């Protein structure tokens, strides 16, 4: 860590608010304190001690579409006076969770600001497509990212050289300088990830090109290409992870970024985390090379399981079996029928409701296959539970009613 060694201790308080409709909304609250140091040249460096509070929310209803938002505010200072920072992001994503191919596209808007004598703000929009393919212990992932926006900065500049004799230093008159510019970062990466037992290896050739403002204590502008080659080794056992990640900038002066991440579970929902980073310059966030370390405590509370799209929801036991509510959100259909092994494959008309088409049945214990006739056509959603090929190039859904506990 040499000259830029840093230590931060963050206590994270996570409040998981019980979702409205079973799981669709989750929020986290985090608070922390720490110190960060960064630099642009060997001769200059800056630091910030801060306290922070953050809020994060994810809305993940059944279906392809999800939304997320987060915001954080930090207040602190160093020997030069008070300082503050904020950042936030909000966006939506489409996630087709197919197997073995998954496609994810996220779009968001973001903004950030720093104030420490000078002021720096930036805002933009991000589009990040990703496609992954997995087979056996291999995961191949291609991801891209385009960020476009702008930055502005207000700097107090001196009208002349400082007078150093006699001490203390006295400064000449100063003036306020305003600058602004465009911010662009675009690039992509291919991740080759292989799992072998508890060890995960990742190789990620990546290339980015960016221009923008990366500030240090003297507000230097940075433009240019950022090529990266990176790799990581992760050791995992249950909920314990130990990961070391290394990345090297492809052009001189080559900066080597190393990230160490460890997460050790202590109890069911408590864990201790350790993060230590050296980072390359980042025009997107307006920061230069820096180093930080963080020790944290994490608490996670999941009130109830996260259900995927639920075609069949189990209810209470009755004398004849277990109540099951079938629901298909086929809002544009004029008729929907349910049929399966439990109906001797005879169609049963479903009832139209605000949430889609519904039918309530009582099924005996066992494994049952079923599907729907939507306007007379066989239909089983791609992410249906227990999807199984029917032998005739179509698919059935499966529901298992476990035997009643004795």
């Amino acid at each position: 860590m040499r000259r830029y060694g840093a230590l931060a201790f963050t206590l994270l308080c996570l409040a998981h608010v019980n979702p409205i409709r079973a799981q669709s909304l989750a929020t986290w609250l985090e608070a922390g304190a720490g110190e960060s140091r960064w630099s642009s040249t060997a001769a200059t460096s800056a630091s910030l001690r801060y306290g922070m509070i953050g809020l994060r929310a994810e809305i993940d209803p059944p279906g392809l579409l999800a939304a997320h938002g987060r915001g954080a505010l930090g207040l602190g200072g160093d020997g030069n006076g008070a300082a503050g920072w904020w950042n936030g992001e909000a966006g939506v994503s489409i996630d087709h969770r197919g197997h073995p191919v998954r496609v994810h596209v996220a779009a968001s808007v973001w903004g950030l600001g720093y104030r420490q004598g000078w002021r720096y703000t930036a805002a933009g929009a991000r589009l990040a497509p990703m496609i992954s393919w997995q087979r056996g212990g291999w995961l191949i992932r291609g991801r891209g990212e385009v960020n476009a926006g702008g930055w502005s900065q207000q700097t107090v500049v001196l009208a002349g050289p400082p007078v150093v004799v006699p001490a203390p230093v006295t400064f000449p008159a100063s003036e306020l300088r305003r600058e602004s510019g465009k911010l662009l970062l675009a690039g992509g990466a291919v991740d080759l990830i292989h799992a072998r037992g508890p060890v995960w290896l990742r190789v990620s050739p990546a290339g980015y090109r960016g221009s923008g403002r990366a500030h240090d204590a003297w507000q230097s502008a940075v433009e240019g290409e950022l090529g990266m080659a990176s790799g990581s080794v992760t050791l995992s056992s249950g909920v314990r992870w130990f990961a070391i990640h290394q990345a090297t900038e492809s052009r001189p002066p080559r900066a080597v970024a190393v990230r160490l991440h460890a997460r050790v579970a202590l109890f069911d929902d408590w864990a201790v985390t350790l993060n230590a980073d050296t980072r390359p310059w980042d025009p997107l966030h307006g920061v230069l090379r820096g180093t930080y370390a963080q020790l944290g405590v994490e608490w996670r509370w999941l009130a109830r399981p996260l259900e995927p799209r639920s075609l069949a929801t189990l209810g209470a036991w009755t004398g004849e079996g277990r109540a099951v509510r079938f629901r298909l959100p086929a809002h544009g259909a004029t008729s929907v029928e349910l049929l399966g092994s439990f109906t001797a494959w005879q169609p049963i008309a479903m009832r139209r409701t605000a949430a889609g088409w519904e039918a309530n049945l009582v099924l005996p214990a066992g494994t049952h296959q079923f599907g729907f006739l939507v306007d007379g056509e066989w239909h089983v959603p791609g992410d249906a539970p227990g999807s199984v090929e029917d032998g005739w190039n179509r698919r059935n859904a499966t529901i298992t009613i476990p035997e009643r506990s004795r």
Partner: protein
Amino acid sequence: MKPVPAFPVAFLALVLSLAPPQVVRLAAQERPELEAVRGRVAPEVSRELTVLVNDAARRGLPASALIDKALEGAAKHVPPALVIGALRELASTLRQAQSLLGGDPGHLRYVEGVAIALQRNAPPEAVRRLAAGASPREDLGATMNVLADLASRGVAPATAENVLLAWRAQGADVDALRRIPLVVTRLIRDGALPAQAAQAVEGALRRGGPPESVGPPAGVGPPRGRPPGRS
């Protein structure tokens, strides 16, 4: 018990094998299960179904799965030749399920559920080992379908088996079993590899917690705030 004379049995078998199909069908349709298909399936499907149901009955296998398949084919307007092919394949899978479940007669009532799990690519060797270690009270149809769920999400057989062994060691709660694939799916969606997600759930179960008591995978989750110098 008085031994059955070998000659009359062999004679009856010879007569039936030489008899025209109509005679065999009449004899077989006395089985009450076949009443459900009368008039709903094509004659050639009915003939094949009769043969397969009789064979299943001799082996102690459930006929209901075969009858369901024939009815499914009729409901989907599948050509008879393709229905017959699917019936033969299902009969083979039922025999495989019976073999994997071993000789425990208490397990035979789960043959149909296990057959569906095998059709969903549940790994046979894992099915065999899990069945061998099951208690008489465990619903093996449900267990094996969760095994198939994990396999369909890319979890390797040995890893999936370990998850289910951890679930058993915790007390084999049927509701927890149903939630295991949901949690694994969630972790994979959050960025974990399938094996990583499954191992996280296994760890949660081995510590005595519910399947959901896992943390986010590496690189996911807080902290998200970025002070200067920290990207």
